């Protein structure tokens, strides 16, 4: 399968993948603990040693998740959610921002389209460059 479609499928099975990763890492810790136990550590100590060796679990999960792709998309989604939540909670600020930006953008657009039609759009003839101006000299 094409890598793009694999990643797309992973995106739809996000929750599953998360659980799988956790189970995979859990298995790693158990194996490691089992090995420490075989080397003579007590069960509790073996588990702690295995857990310590793994290091920062969240960071590891995050780094692995990054390999599934879509990190940029995920972050964009988070940013958008954050933006809309902030806008929803700060109504007055949102109102002021919108009511100052909207007329500004609207007025600009209106003036530009006016200028465009008057100054910039070419004359309604087939070859405007060949037009000449003639005046009668006195």
């Amino acid at each position, binding site marked *: *399968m094409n*890598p793009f479609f*694999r*990643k797309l499928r992973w995106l739809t099975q996000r929750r599953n993948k998360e659980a*799988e*990763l956790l*189970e*995979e*890492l859990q*298995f*790693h810790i*158990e*194996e*490691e603990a*089992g*090995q420490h136990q075989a*080397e*003579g550590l007590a069960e509790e100590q073996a588990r702690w040693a295995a857990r310590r*060796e*793994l*290091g*920062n679990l969240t*960071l*590891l999960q995050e*780094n*692995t998740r*990054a*390999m*599934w*792709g879509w990190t940029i998309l995920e972050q964009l989604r988070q940013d958008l959610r954050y933006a809309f939540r902030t806008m929803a909670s700060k109504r007055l600020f949102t109102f002021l921002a919108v009511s100052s930006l909207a007329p500004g953008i609207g007025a600009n657009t209106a003036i530009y389209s006016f200028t465009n039609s008057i100054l910039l759009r070419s004359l309604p003839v087939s070859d405007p460059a060949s037009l000449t101006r003639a005046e009668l000299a006195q």
Partner: protein
Amino acid sequence: MRREPPSRVELLQGTLDLLILRTLLAGPAHGHAISKHIQRTSEDLLLVETGSLYPALHRLEAKAWVAASWDLSDKGKRARFYRLTPLGRKQLAVEQSKWEAFCRAMGLILNPVDQEGQ
């Protein structure tokens, strides 16, 4: 029992993929087994950090060089087994010859046998 081997070599950037692919040539294995195999085979000189092993495995899976499936481990627990895909096998050949060329070049520079005699 030796807890800390006398010296340990830092894994060079980009070599972990090659080590993983080569390890899987012997057959499917789960993450822990791969890490232990690399450590044992290198006579404890190379230690694969778990923090880089799993991202690497998932990266290789995304590139379709390895495929993963759940299976029972030798102790009867569910584990995620990785196996080499035909694409991975091809990539292994490429990476290995690249690495060997690199080693040869390093050797030529570090031990210039022919030139120094003159």
